[in-house]
């Protein structure tokens, strides 16, 4: 069966510090991978998605970047965090045939202070 791992669960970082969130998927090949952000009490905003190694699509201009160095690994990064980067970050995967049924990780609560 397929599983998705996302870590850490909670992260507190000072403004201006770097960020690296990692997400890995097991039990499937060539998945589509996604990073969403969720502000408190709000919906899910798509940040990045990837349909293959090295292929990154950015949905909104921001202080963040994403990379996919391996088929089942998706990394969300920032060189210098802003207060506005605080939020709940969710990684998700879908079969490579489309963007339909997404399976989400457990999320990372990021607080930038």
């Amino acid at each position, binding site marked *: 069966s397929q599983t998705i791992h996302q870590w850490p669960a909670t992260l507190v970082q000072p403004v201006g510090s770097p960020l690296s969130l990692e997400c890995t998927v097991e039990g499937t090949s060539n998945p589509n991978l996604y990073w969403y952000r969720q502000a408190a009490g*709000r919906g899910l905003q*798509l940040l990045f998605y990837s349909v293959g190694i090295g292929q990154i699509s950015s949905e909104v201009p921001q202080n963040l970047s994403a990379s996919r160095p391996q088929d089942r690994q998706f990394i969300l990064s920032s060189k210098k965090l802003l207060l506005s980067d605080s939020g709940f970050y969710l990684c998700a995967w879908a079969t490579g045939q489309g*963007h339909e*049924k997404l*399976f989400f990780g457990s999320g990372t609560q990021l607080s930038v202070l």
Partner: protein
Amino acid sequence: GESVGLHLPTLSVQEGDNSIINCAYSNSASDYFIWYKQESGKGPQFIIDIRSNMDKRQGQRVTVLLNKTVKHLSLQIAATQPGDSAVYFCAETHGNTPLVFGKGTRLSVIA
């Protein structure tokens, strides 16, 4: 997709009653719809999905209804239980575009 509001709409239902959560979408080209349940501090969990060639689909205690004429989607939960308390999101997609999520509805079950 829907714009995101500052406060989630809330639906309060008595335990044992049926719940109906509604979602409006704007893109008439959307051909796939999906509902997720999100408990506090957790990632969204898949509940049920439906394609635009269907009007209704049933799962265990849940039913999704799609009205393409008025671009409306609903999730019905039968015999609502305390464990159903969560935020529910609808999402849509068409063609080769990623899912666009609605703003969510908070369901509170009164015991």
